[in-house]
């Protein structure tokens, strides 16, 4: 317990000091926080519950559009802001910007949660591949639909309100970093506390054998929906922040970016080790560093390098980094290994 406390304190201090130690990397660090949130929440479905969802991007994109729309709509006519070739330019004063952002983020978190409940009710009855394909469709459909809605800019995209001038150039980076770091901490605390309750055991039971779980009297549907709603809450929040950070929302390339973000969140969780608390966090961090490195040093080849990375992950780390460590050093994970039994098994092989 004590050691744990030291670890968390160290990470927290590092997180709080990071933008000042690496002032040039604020944007990358903010994105890292968002990636961790996405990977960690995906892990609730993909890792703990055994439902491979490609649809979490739906909540992320929804949060992004909602946050920006509220932020603009609270003070100015939204239709005029997004009107293509809009001749009018509105400027948010600092209080307007921050109030709008605050309300926007609340909406960005709450609405996707409700949407997740509604969609979940209708599709969480599907299992396995059927669920995966269905959720894949959700993200694609959302991208195409939002690309046709004029009030949020349609194909023109949606420029989010520019950060107000509050003196320092660094303020924007710092604001978004702390916002995303705070969201990350919130997500971590929430997920960690969930994982220490019976709820996690139920999710695991669904993963291991859903029929048996039902036979044991667990209302699996209810828990599946709640699990998805929790993910949606944080995905929406992450989306809202990301929209402000990027500054420009495009329906298929930024918001409902299933091809990138939607796949990355799965990849990161698998890389780190799904079904573990730390796995997605480690996976997202390594993935982000790899990706940024590829972009800098293998210009034009980054996706080839990324493809190789994915192949390596699947072949050598099918259980992810945490799973690999766990197999290699089981005693460090608090598992007791019977040396005789292990040897016997090795000989059998």
């Amino acid at each position, binding site marked *: 317990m004590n*050691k744990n406390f030291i670890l968390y304190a160290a990470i927290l201090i590092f997180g709080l000091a990071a933008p000042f130690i690496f002032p040039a990397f604020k944007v990358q660090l903010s994105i890292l926080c968002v990636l961790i949130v996405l990977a960690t929440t995906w892990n609730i479905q993909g890792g703990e519950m055994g439902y491979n969802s490609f649809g979490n991007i739906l909540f992320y994109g929804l949060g992004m559009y909602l946050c920006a729309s509220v932020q603009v709509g609270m003070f100015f006519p939204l239709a005029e802001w997004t009107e293509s070739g809009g001749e009018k330019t509105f400027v948010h004063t600092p209080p307007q910007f921050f109030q709008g952002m605050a309300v926007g983020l609340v909406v960005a978190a709450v609405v996707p949660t409700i949407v997740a409940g509604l969609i979940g009710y209708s599709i969480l009855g599907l299992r396995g591949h059927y669920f995966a394909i269905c959720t894949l469709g959700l993200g694609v459909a959302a991208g195409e639909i939002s690309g046709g809605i004029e009030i949020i800019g349609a194909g023109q995209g949606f420029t989010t309100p520019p950060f107000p001038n509050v003196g320092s150039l660094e303020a924007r980076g710092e604001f978004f970093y702390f916002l995303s770091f705070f969201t990350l901490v919130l997500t971590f605390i929430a997920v960690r506390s969930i994982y220490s309750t019976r709820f996690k055991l139920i999710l695991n039971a669904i993963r291991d054998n859903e029929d048996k779980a039902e036979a044991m009297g667990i209302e699996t549907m209810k828990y599946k929906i709640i699990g998805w709603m929790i993910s949606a809450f944080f995905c929406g929040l992450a989306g809202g922040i990301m929209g402000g950070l990027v500054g420009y929302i495009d329906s298929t390339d930024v918001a409902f970016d299933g091809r990138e973000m939607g796949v990355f969140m799965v990849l990161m969780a698998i890389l780190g080790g799904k079904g573990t608390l*730390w796995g997605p966090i480690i996976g997202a961090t390594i993935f982000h560093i790899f990706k940024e490195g590829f972009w800098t040093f293998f210009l034009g080849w980054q996706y080839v390098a990324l493809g190789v990375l994915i192949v390596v992950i699947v072949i050598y780390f099918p259980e992810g980094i945490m799973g690999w460590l766990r197999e290699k050093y089981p005693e460090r994970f608090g598992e007791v290994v019977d040396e005789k039994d292990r040897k016997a098994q090795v000989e059998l092989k």
Partner: protein
Amino acid sequence: MRLNKIILSFVSALVILLSTSVASFAKVVGDKIILGAAISLTGKYSSNGVHTQNGYNMAVDRINSMGGVKVGGKTYKFDIIYYDDESNPKRAAQLAERLISQDGVEFMLGPYSSGLTKAIAPVTEKYGVPMVEANGASRSLFTKGYKYLFAVLAPANLYLDVAIETAVELNGGKPVRIAQAFEQDAFSQDVRLGILDAAERTGSKIIIDDKLPKELNDMAATLVKVKQMKPDVLVVSGHTKGALTAIRQIAEMKVDVPMLAMTHCDAAKLSKQHGKNSQYALCASQWHKSLTYKDDFFKDGMTYAADFEKEFGYDPPYQSAESSAALLVFKDAFERANSFDQKKVRDALAATNMQTFYGNIKFAPGGQNVDKPMVLFQVMCDASGSCENKVVAPLKWASAKLIHPIPKWSER
């Protein structure tokens, strides 16, 4: 609880990695002026991204070999740091941030496409980094009050409205029936706005108004409607892929329409790729090699095209020409500002008034180039089947007469 140790060592490794990877460039090192650019080297805009990059590189080499940039009595050479934005606005915004705050770039060149320029402009604006862009034509870029954004091209809504006016003129001044299909992206949607304006102006009716998905591979549904409703003009815009798809399917389905107006014909190398099938397509272009503008570096359009072909092995599309022009604008501004102060360079850029091989360049307060009209060319093929783009409007530069209406497929 050894797990904690692993995580702790992991975190500290991360700290070390981050702190050693800080690269430091600066805007002007020794005798080099370093410009930053995020270019679409991969993704859906990759072909146009490469056209843009080739245009930039061509101009950098030319300016450097012809004496470079003279500022404060010293001679400097251009150098460009490129990153790949993957045709993704999120990535582009991130890279702009990176170029400025990590690489220390103080002057930027634009990316390819309006969408990506829209994503980058807020970043350059925030840091007060002057950006000369050559490939973001969306009108909304110029109404947001950006002070550091300068575009050497004419805004997107002007691309094809000439075509509508020409169609009305050829129809004896009577309104025409327009069918249009546009990709759902910032640029094409702006071209659409231009058509809507032109239709309203001329009293023309829009009978088909389709939106097409990005990465356009199929527009058969629209073409079926066109076959049924027989409009006077069909307008299609969807970057390179859109142009290729449209021509391929129009030929496959033998769609007869009196006028076909498009964008990106030259970037898609339509006349090479589809040969006679692309014949009679009317294309909006920012530039054509036969225009008679001149400058000291590339001489004129014909010379530019020949030099470009020698270096890169293909006829330059206007995307390359306008990108080269962006460097000429920067050079001119640096020399007039006689300083590397961003504010001064910005003011010098705003006062630009020059002629390049690509056209006259003079910026409106919004940042768009107001001194250069669009041209329309038509793909024309001779009996042997070799096709060429010939300017048909405006009349001042026309090297051929517009063929209208397009002969039916059965008569070709």
